[in-house]
């Protein structure tokens, strides 16, 4: 690599570790702002179609599985709590506890994905998947529109969740083998995980609860 002695190792441009921490947190928050708008475009789509097809979207949302949805929300909220515990224990140097909490977070994340894919399977059996074999005759009106939006939103959310699980497992292994340079905190990983949880907090009422008072 370049022989710029003073400036090769990462973080040379920071005055001290505290500034490095502040900068990485601020960077993650800025990234989360972009993610808010990235999912926000989908949520704006829902609201606009809700203005036009209010009752039809409610009727279409009736086909969603509220029981599975509620369990999934509980699972994700718990995983968020586990991540908070993991960050807290990692910063107070309790390495083993941090590892365990991270493992719990990843496990709950995988549980969420499992329940979600089971739900997808049920919807596939009911011919509700637009691209594959959507049963147009049986579900009229804006149902196909709603389910196109539903699969885009939950698919994107699940993708973000899988990426998050990957990082959590990576962090857990790094802490277990103590290869994590001290001072580098998993706070920003925690921020990302909590954000994915917040996206689900907003998707849950739009998808599942809307359908109950049709």
């Amino acid at each position: 690599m370049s022989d710029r002695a003073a400036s090769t190792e990462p973080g040379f441009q920071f005055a001290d570790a505290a500034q490095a921490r502040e900068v990485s947190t601020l960077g993650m928050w800025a990234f989360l702002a972009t993610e808010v708008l990235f999912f926000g475009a989908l949520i704006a789509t829902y609201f606009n179609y809700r203005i036009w097809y209010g009752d039809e979207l409610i009727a279409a949302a009736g086909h969603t599985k509220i029981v599975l949805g509620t369990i999934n929300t509980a699972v994700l909220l718990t995983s968020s709590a586990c991540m908070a515990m993991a960050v807290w224990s990692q910063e107070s140097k309790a390495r083993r506890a941090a590892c365990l909490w991270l493992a719990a977070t990843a496990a709950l994340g995988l549980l969420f994905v499992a329940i979600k894919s089971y739900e997808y399977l049920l919807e596939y059996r009911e011919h509700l998947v637009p691209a594959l074999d959507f049963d147009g005759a049986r579900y009229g009106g804006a149902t196909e529109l709603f389910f196109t939006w539903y699969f885009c939103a939950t698919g994107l959310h699940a993708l973000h969740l899988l990426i998050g699980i990957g990082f959590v497992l990576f962090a857990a292994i790094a802490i277990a083998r103590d290869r994590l340079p001290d001072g580098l905190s998993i706070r920003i990983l925690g921020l990302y995980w909590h954000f994915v949880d917040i996206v689900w907090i907003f998707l849950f009422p739009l998808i599942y609860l809307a359908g109950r008072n049709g």
Partner: protein
Amino acid sequence: MVLKVWLALFALLALTTTMAFVQLGSANLAIALAIAVAKAVLVLWFFMELKGSAGLTRAFAAAGFFWLLILIALTWADYSQRRDVRVPVTISSPRSP
């Protein structure tokens, strides 16, 4: 502290799910969203430690949501007003939103 927040989140989840089955017409969406906002604020404030962080971090957090509101508000201005105005007066249909 994490335990208390976790329990509060569960309580709100239970509340919003039960409220969904109560027939309130258009108010249902408003209530469900209000509870969702409450849960999101809980997660932001405690889990993401906005409580202890500087004003600048809070500003960054708020900016994303505020700009999303701009997009939703101005598209709402178009969608909620579009249907009836376009059709000429002879056969205008004041469709109630």
